[in-house]
């Protein structure tokens, strides 16, 4: 189902079971640990204008309902503060399923093939890394606030790296 809440920057496509508290970071019916998410979880990145992505979302929603795609998230507007001028559409899945998911995307006309691991994304949002620093600069935060945000990110993301056997519970950018 497509979750389009105008107050959110992102539009999501989840299976309804996620709204009942079940996780989508699952492989063969088993919830992934932090260590497994770092090793296997990622997304195919699709870029485009909002209208085309809305249409793609409608076409892919049935595949999420059939559990062939675990989750999709995409921008309502381009993240110009991070330097993008197109909306980013992220099709999440386990690396071990990614070829199957790519075949679905390919049938929908997606051509540019870009797989980004969740680990790589987390690393880009760590203190001193490009997306974190670019985002803080765009927000105009003063240095004490930036330091507080850096420490918070280090703690939150660090917990995932430091506890590989715990079940993954998500993270916020």
């Amino acid at each position, binding site marked *: 189902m497509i979750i389009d809440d105008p107050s959110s920057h992102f539009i999501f496509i989840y299976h309804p079971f996620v709204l009942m508290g079940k996780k989508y970071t699952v492989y063969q019916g088993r919830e992934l640990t932090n260590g497994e998410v770092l090793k296997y979880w990622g997304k195919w*990145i699709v*870029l485009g*204008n909002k209208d085309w992505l809305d249409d793609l979302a409608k076409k892919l929603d049935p595949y999420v309902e059939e559990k062939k795609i675990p989750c999709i998230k995409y921008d309502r507007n381009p993240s110009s503060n991070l330097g993008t*001028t197109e909306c980013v559409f992220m099709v999440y899945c386990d690396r071990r399923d990614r070829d199957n998911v*790519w075949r679905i995307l390919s049938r929908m006309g997606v051509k540019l093939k870009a*797989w980004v691991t969740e680990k790589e994304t987390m690393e*880009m949002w760590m203190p001193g890394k490009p997306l974190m620093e670019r985002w803080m600069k765009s927000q105009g935060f003063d240095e004490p606030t930036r330091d507080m945000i850096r420490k918070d990110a280090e703690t939150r993301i660090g917990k995932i790296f430091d506890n590989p056997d715990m079940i993954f519970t998500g993270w916020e950018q």
Partner: protein
Amino acid sequence: MSIIIRIPGSLKEWLDNQEEAVCQGNTIQECFNYLENNFPGFCDRIIDDKGEMSNVLIFLNGENIRNMEGLDTKVNPDDEIGIIPLAAGG
């Protein structure tokens, strides 16, 4: 040998308003050099003043070349190179 390069619409001015082009080379760097000859300024958009790819993510057949051998990664006929803005990976 022919390699296909694909970029998103927002970057298409890099390839003279095309979202894909054919290039040649044995490595990613050689392919970029080939593109530089056809689309002057292409390499400067990819590699910054420090010689780093700080603003883009580059993929070979979907795999981030940072996890391979970077610009020295070898390519084969009919391989596909993809480029997206760094921020799109987050």
